[in-house]
């Protein structure tokens, strides 16, 4: 899909907060195996609860995968997509290794209710 001369791609994912809560409770001591220091800081930050932050990260990374048309990449695929920065409402991710879009940036916005976090991703070359 081309917009204004740029190629962009879209990805959406949804994570159940209850699932993120169960994951956090069971594996919070292992999070640094799969998340960067910046992402660990985001999870433990003050903007929202660690569980909500974890759900946002998981949904965002999956949405980035989909925007990149990479499909399923396995657990270690999470590490290759890293949070670069955040704005007031959005998170920015970069692809660390990719077949055709090294250092491509992705902007992710969120919708959230009590049960789910939905991440919407736009990738721009």
């Amino acid at each position, binding site marked *: 899909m081309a917009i204004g001369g740029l190629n962009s791609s879209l990805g959406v994912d949804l994570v159940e907060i209850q*699932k993120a809560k169960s994951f956090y409770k069971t594996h919070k001591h292992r999070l640094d195996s*799969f998340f960067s220091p910046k992402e660990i800081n985001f999870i433990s930050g003050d903007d929202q609860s660690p569980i909500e932050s974890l759900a946002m990260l998981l949904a965002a990374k999956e949405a980035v995968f989909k925007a990149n048309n990479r499909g*399923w990449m396995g657990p270690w695929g999470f590490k290759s997509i890293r949070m670069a920065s955040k704005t007031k409402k959005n998170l920015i991710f970069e692809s660390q290794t990719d*077949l055709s879009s090294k250092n491509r940036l992705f902007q992710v916005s969120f919708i959230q209710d009590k049960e789910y976090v939905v991440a919407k991703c736009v990738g721009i070359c």
Partner: protein
Amino acid sequence: MNQDKNEITKIVKTIISQALKVEEKDIQTSSSLIKDLGAESIDFLDIVFRLEKAFKIKIPKGELFPEKILTDTRFVKDGRITPAGIEELKGKISGANWEEFSKNPLVANFGELFTVGMIVDYLSQKLAPVS
């Protein structure tokens, strides 16, 4: 750690039952984690962590799931795994229905190949005594 395949299978089914909230009786070695048991990406992470804890092992990148092949431009083109990529994957993963997958080898569909039995086979090899 010496564990026979039956013992490993039992533990793996318990782990998958806990991670995916499915009954153990509904888990077969032929069950696809994604297609039959509804696993999502977070579940694969959860399962890997649980396997490492239960069997007291580390599962390095690329050993259980072939991420390196799926990000190699020799083996993936335009979202599809090339014939060379499928040959490479066959060497790493046994028991998959490669004939069926080869008809439409999308990277997006690759995860559906993963079965409970593949995890059991991987652990059986990893835990086998070194001769």
